[in-house]
Structures are given as C-alpha cells and as structure tokens.
C-alpha cells in the first residue's frame, strides 16, 4: 500500500525548528557547556534530518546528517563547543533554510557553500572517525550475503530457539513463525520438550522452540530478516537442505529402504526398526548431530500423526447412531417447533418488541435445527432399490420370464422411516408388474416386443415430496375389463360412467384382482389395497397410468419426512384444521352468488375448470354461520382437483404431527393432530382419504 503524505507538515515544522535552532545556538555561545542546550541543538538537527528524509527532502537530510554527526560528538563530550563550531552550525542552519526555500520555489541554494560548511565541520572532528559512522557503512550488506539462487524453490530447515526471556521485550515468537509461513509452504514442528511441569513453570518465560521446514522461492536473507529483531535473543540456525551436499547418508539409506519396501523385500516395520539404531550409529560416528536425527524423527512423527488425524477425521465423517435415538431427537425438535409457535404467538400478542426479536431468533434457529435434524434421517433410496434386483431375478426365473430391473435416482434421499415402510408396498407392486404386467418371452415376441421385459424403478424429488415410479413395458391395464369386473363384484353401479384413470384406481379396491388365474406369486389374498393402505399410512398417494399393450406406470408420491409437515391452517367457526400444503394448489373465494349459480351442485368454475368441492362445515357437523365470502382450498388429490370449503384461510403453518387415538369420530379423515401456538388442537386432514370417502358415499348413494 502507499500512503499520501502532505509535505507541508514537514516544511512548516522545519522552519520552526530552524528558528529554535538559531536561538539555541546563540544561547549556547553564551553557555558553551550547557548540555541541555547541546541536546536541544542536536535534537533539532536530528528531527530535521529524520523527517526530511521521510518526506523526501533528501538534500536536507544528507546535509543535516553531517552537522548532526559533529554535534553528536559534542554531546558526547568528544569535542568542545567552540566559537568555530557555533559559527559553522549557524551557517549550516542558514544553508538548510536556503535548501528548504529552494524546494519551496525560492532561489537555488549555494552547493559550494554547503560543501565548505561540511568540510569545516569535519575538520573539527578528531581523526577520521566520521566516516565510520556514515550511512554507507551502516547499510545492511544484504546484497553481498544473498546467495546466487538458481531460481525455483528451495527448502530450508530453520531452527528457532528463543531465549526464555524473550517475552520481556514484547516479542511474540509465534508472530515470527507465522511470518516464516508467509514466505512459502511450511511444515512446522513445535518442540515442547523443555516445558517444565506446570508447578515449576514460569508462564512469563518462553519454553518452546520451533523447527520449520520451509520451501520457498526466497533466499536465506529473507528468512534472516524475519528474525532481525531477535537475532541476539535466540538460537537461530538456518540451513538449506535440498542441495546435494546437504543430503546426508541417512537420507540415502532411507531411499534404499523405501525401495526395498516397494519391491517387497522387507516390510516397513523392519525398515523402521533398523533406521532408528542407524540414526544412533550415525550420531556416534559423528556423521550427523543428534539434533538432525531428532528433527528427522520428529518430522516423521508429525507426518504420521497428521495422517492419523486425517484418518480419525475420515472416520468421524459418519457416525452410526441407533435410529430410536434419532426418533427421540425428532420428537424433541417437534416439541420445540410447537413451543416456538407458542412463543411467536405470545410475542406478537404482547406487542413487546424485544420479545418479538427473541421469538424471531428462536424461529430461525428452530427451523435450522429442524432441517438439520430431518436431514440426519435422510437416506438414499439406492440400497432399497438394490434389494429388488434379487427379487426380480428370482421371480422371473420362477415364472419363466426374462425381466431386467433398471433403476434411476438411487441417490434420492428420503426419511429413513419412509424408506423402511416403503419396502413392502414396493415388493408388492413389483411382484404385480412381473406377474400380471410383463408377458412371457414367446408372447412378447409374438407382439413384436423384445423377449426380455423391463421393470424400471425411479426416484426423484418433487417439491416436498418424493416420487417413486415403477414402470413396466408389459401388457398394461385394460380399463374396460376393470369396469366390468367392478360391476360384477358390485363395487361399481352398472350405469356409472368412469374415466380410464378412475378405472385404474379400481385395482386398489379390497379383494380386487385382475389375475386371470391365481399364481404362486400374486393373488394370495393380498391385493393392491394393501399397497394403498401402506402408502396412506405414509401420507402419500398412488397414481396409476397405463396404456394397453404398452405397459403400466405406478407412481408413489411420498412426503420427505413424516414427523413435520408444512400445512395450511384453516378455520371453520371456532375449529382449526390443517391441510397438507404439498397437496394445496390455490385458494379461491366462494361467494353466495357462486353457490346460487351452480344451483346447489357443489362445484365451482376455476378459470374454466369445473372443480367439485366438499363443505367441511357440513362434513364435520360444525355449528355457526359461514361468512358471506367463504374460501375454497383447491387441492390436487390423486390426479384430480378437489376443493375444500372453509371459513377462513389463516396461513402457512409448520406442523408437528401427533397421532390420533382410535376413539375419534372421524379418525379416517385425519392423519393426525397438531398443537397451535395458543394450545388449541388442530386436526390434520388426510385429503386423499377424505376424497375417497366422499366418492364412496357418492357412489353408494349416501350423503355426507
């Protein structure tokens, strides 16, 4: 960096000093032995010189230097203050003034005069002592000492052993070690052997010394410069260790040893057991110092320790924890989220600004804690996927089919609990695909398909959900056959028109099997209804897509986690409910006019789409009167839109799910409950169950 300095500060002060100098000199002429006066003259000169040089007034500095030198002698009593000295000094003072005048735009100063004054002053000095104190000799001999470096990097070993008393001069040896670190890449060994036991230790003394291995493009002088203030207060040994002559026998032996280990002739332990005594022998033979061996061994130790530390760190990168401990943690976080909601609510109702700030901070921390805790339980689904490879292989062999299982998105993460509970439904779906979906090789060939069929398992994130898809390239579902079968079984009124998509959903009906014949694999009384139940339990949904002759695709939409969901808090009269936000699409208003226009049919036109809705007030027998303008929460459940009419939509709510007992009136329609900030309980509505219940009642002619 460079600093802009205003030189006027110097010139002003210099003029001031010069007039003081004049006064002092005249006074000194009267009292030539007054040391105070001599000191004053000297300091004036000294300051003019020092600051002159700093502010770039080199001519002033140079000239004043000689005058100062002479006066220093007078100060030391080496020369007397004579009239001649006073005359010359006064002349010098005038000369300085004229140099300053010149710099300020005045007449040029008389260089010859300057020379005469200097010569006159020097003549006053005994012998030629002046020269020994000249700046030229004081110049550090950096250039001479600097070795001719062949460029590139060199490695130095620096032994730095500060005196025990080094702290007494305000020196922090660590700063010097750090300064060395800035010169290149370093390996630093702090040698603490001489630290006495705590009881005997004087904390004001330095007991540590350092050995630094420095690889740098700088020369030895740059290293010495670091220690310039402490060169008399430490043992300092700097040695270049990468040159030929520095490579000692020990290193050669090590290379040979390494080679032998590489070739498998000896093992590493044997080599080490030999190397150590070798060090001792070398010391005894006087080839290397004990310190060299120690340092080498210390370095080896440090490297080993470092490797060990790295290993520990790698191991620490993952920790196995019993999953129930994680469950407890999640429970606690859940409680915390609830308390935080209460804190928030209290803070806002109290209108206490400080409390609100605290609540906000707690909210931030809670949500971070929640996310982190949840992420701990996240596992990649890949291992589950792999388990199915065996299943597919065994099943296809048993059924005489050729089926290949392919997977994608194996690294998709979801809650461990979800993964655990997903296993059975997946097994069931895959069994179904292999048994009913994918045709045998002959049949496939006849249909112009490849002999080998494919079942593809995929996982992907979609917002707060995970989509798991099982796709086969088999026969596909026959919507007409499904309809016929449902009518036969009395599960579907014969005159009811349903779409293909709705027909596919029929496979999830209890006891509904499309298998023409019962095989060993499926049709053991366990149908897809079990799959639906399991997925419902996970607050997920199942969607089926199929094309006759081309294949079937079953999509499971699952929440990332089970413990906490983002919900939409709604109100009907004085009751609160939570709708899972993942299923919510939008909220629209329902006015009396809208209701009148549809003549009592519970549908609303949302931008050209007719969306049926369910009045939650009627559904749950809640009293009170609806407001003039009600709200409809439009959600998408199992591929179809459905509205839920409520009085008010309060907003997004982070919901900790508490399970419900069996004693509730509508337990099927609720997946749980949550506790609001003020302690009120809000039920969490299971939207897909609600829709299915409503459909069933509609199909069977009953009214909610």
């Amino acid at each position, binding site marked *: *960096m*460079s*600093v*802009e*300095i205003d030189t006027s*500060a*110097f010139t*002003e*002060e*210099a003029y001031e*000093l010069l007039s003081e100098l004049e006064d002092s000199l005249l006074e000194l002429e009267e009292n030539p032995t007054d040391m105070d006066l001599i*000191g*004053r003259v*000297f*300091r004036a000169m*000294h*300051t003019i*010189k*020092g*600051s*002159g*040089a*700093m*502010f770039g007034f080199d001519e002033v*500095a140079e000239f004043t*230097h000689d005058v*100062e*030198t002479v006066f*220093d002698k007078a100060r030391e009593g080496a020369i007397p203050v004579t009239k001649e000295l006073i005359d010359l000094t006064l002349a010098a003072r005038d000369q300085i003034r004229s140099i300053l005048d010149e710099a300020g735009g005045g007449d040029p100063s008389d260089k010859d005069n300057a020379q005469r004054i200097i010569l006159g002053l020097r003549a006053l000095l005994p012998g030629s002592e002046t020269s020994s*104190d000249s*700046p030229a000799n*004081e*110049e550090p001999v950096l250039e001479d000492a600097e070795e001719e470096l062949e460029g590139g990097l060199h490695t130095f070993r620096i032994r730095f052993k500060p005196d025990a008393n080094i*702290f*007494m*001069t*305000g*020196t*922090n040896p660590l*700063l*010097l070690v*750090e*300064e060395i670190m800035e010169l290149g890449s370093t390996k630093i060994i702090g040698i603490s052997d001489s630290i006495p036991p705590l009881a005997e230790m004087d904390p*004001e003394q330095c007991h540590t010394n350092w050995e630094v291995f420095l690889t740098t493009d700088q020369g030895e002088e740059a290293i010495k410069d*670091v220690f*310039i*203030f402490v060169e*008399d*207060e430490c043992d300092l040994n700097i040695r270049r260790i990468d040159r030929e002559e520095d490579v000692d026998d020990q290193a050669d032996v090590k290379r040979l040893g390494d080679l032998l280990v590489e070739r498998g002739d000896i093992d590493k332990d044997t080599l080490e057991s030999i190397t150590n005594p070798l060090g001792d022998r070398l010391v005894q033979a006087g080839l290397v110092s004990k310190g060299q061996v120690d340092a080498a061994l210390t370095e080896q130790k440090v490297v080993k320790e470092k490797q060990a530390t790295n290993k520990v760190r790698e191991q620490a990168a993952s920790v196995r924890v019993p999953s129930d401990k994680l469950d407890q943690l999640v429970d606690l976080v859940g409680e915390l989220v609830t308390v935080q909601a209460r804190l928030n609510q209290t803070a806002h109702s109290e209108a206490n600004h400080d409390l609100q700030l605290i609540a906000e901070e707690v909210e931030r921390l809670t949500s971070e804690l929640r996310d982190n805790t949840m992420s701990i339980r996240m596992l990649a689904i890949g291992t589950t996927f792999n388990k199915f490879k065996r299943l597919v292989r065994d099943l296809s062999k048993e059924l005489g089919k050729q089926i290949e299982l392919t997977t994608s998105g194996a690294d998709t993460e979801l809650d461990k609990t979800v993964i655990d509970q997903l296993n059975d439904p997946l097994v069931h779906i895959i069994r179904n695909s292999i048994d009913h979906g994918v045709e045998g090789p002959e049949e496939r060939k006849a249909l112009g398909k490849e002999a080998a069929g494919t079942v593809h398992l995929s996982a992907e994130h979609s917002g707060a959900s995970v989509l798991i898809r099982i796709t086969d390239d088999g026969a596909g579902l026959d919507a007409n056959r499904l309809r016929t079968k449902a009518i036969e079984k009395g599960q579907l009124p014969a005159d009811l028109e349903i779409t293909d998509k709705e027909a596919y959903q029929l496979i999830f009906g209890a006891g509904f099997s499309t298998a023409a014949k019962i095989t060993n694999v499926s049709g053991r009384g366990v149908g897809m209804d079990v799959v639906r139940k399991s997925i419902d339990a996970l607050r997920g949904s199942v969607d089926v897509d199929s094309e006759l002759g081309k294949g079937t695709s079953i999509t499971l939409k699952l929440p990332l986690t089970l413990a906490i969901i983002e919900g939409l808090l709604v109100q009907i009269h004085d009751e609160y409910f939570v709708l899972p936000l993942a299923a919510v699409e939008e909220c629209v208003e329902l006015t009396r006019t809208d209701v009148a226009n549809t003549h009592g049919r519970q549908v609303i036109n949302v931008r050209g789409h007719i969306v049926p809705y369910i009045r939650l007030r009627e559904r749950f027998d809640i009293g009170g009167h609806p407001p003039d303008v009600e709200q409809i929460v439009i959600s998408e459940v199992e591929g179809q839109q459905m509205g839920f009419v409520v009085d008010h939509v309060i907003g997004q709510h982070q919901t900790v799910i508490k399970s419900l007992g069996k004693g509730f009136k509508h337990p099927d329609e609720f997946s749980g409950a949550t506790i609001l900030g003020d302690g009120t309980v809000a039920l969490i509505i299971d939207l897909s169950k609600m829709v299915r219940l409503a459909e069933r009642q509609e199909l069977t002619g009953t009214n909610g």
Partner: protein
Amino acid sequence: MAKTIMTVDDSSSVRQMVSITLKSAGYTVVEGVDGQDALTKLKASPVDMVITDLNMPNMDGITLIRNLRALPAFKFTPIVMLTTESQASRKQEGKSAGATGWIVKPFKPDQLLTVIKKVLR
C-alpha cells in the same frame, strides 16, 4: 476491534506521518510529544503497541521504554523504537531497556507497517 498504537515523537511532522500511515492501515493512534507526555498518557490508558523516538526533550525514548517495561500493563507490549542509522550503538541500548525492535529513520510508510505486522497482531 482496531488496535491502538501510540506514536511518541517530539517532531510533529514525524508524528503526523506515523499517524496517517497507521490510520490508513486501520489502527487507532494516540500521540505523545515526548517520553514524559507519553508515560503519563500511557499510565492512564494502555495501548497495544508503542512506537517511540529516542531523542526527545524531558524524557528520551530509552528511559520511556525502561519505565514502561516496569509497569505490569506494559510488560509484554511491543515497543518499537525509531532510530537513525547513526545510532547503531543505541539499538543495543534500546534492546537492553526492553525494546521489541527498531525502525531505522528515514523510513517509508510501507516499511513502518511491515515492522508493525512483525510484532503486533
């Protein structure tokens, strides 16, 4: 928090230069016009580092360093002395008094900062 450094010099221009240099590097600076003034001020409120001239009226730099080192608050404080090349012999005197290091006058602002970095962090 910014470190506070005291610059002690009887020359106002040197003080100003040291001060501007230090402030531009983010340090807080207090000034002393001589050793006596500095000692009085430092006793009242210690600093992180002292940069002192050697030749000053009332109390010179070496005496200031000796006095500061005798105070518990300044036992380990970095104290750097400003010397000129003609005062080589005084470096040792300063070190004996307890100076951490020295800066040879004249110096450039960058050199001053380099030295501070060596002793203060």
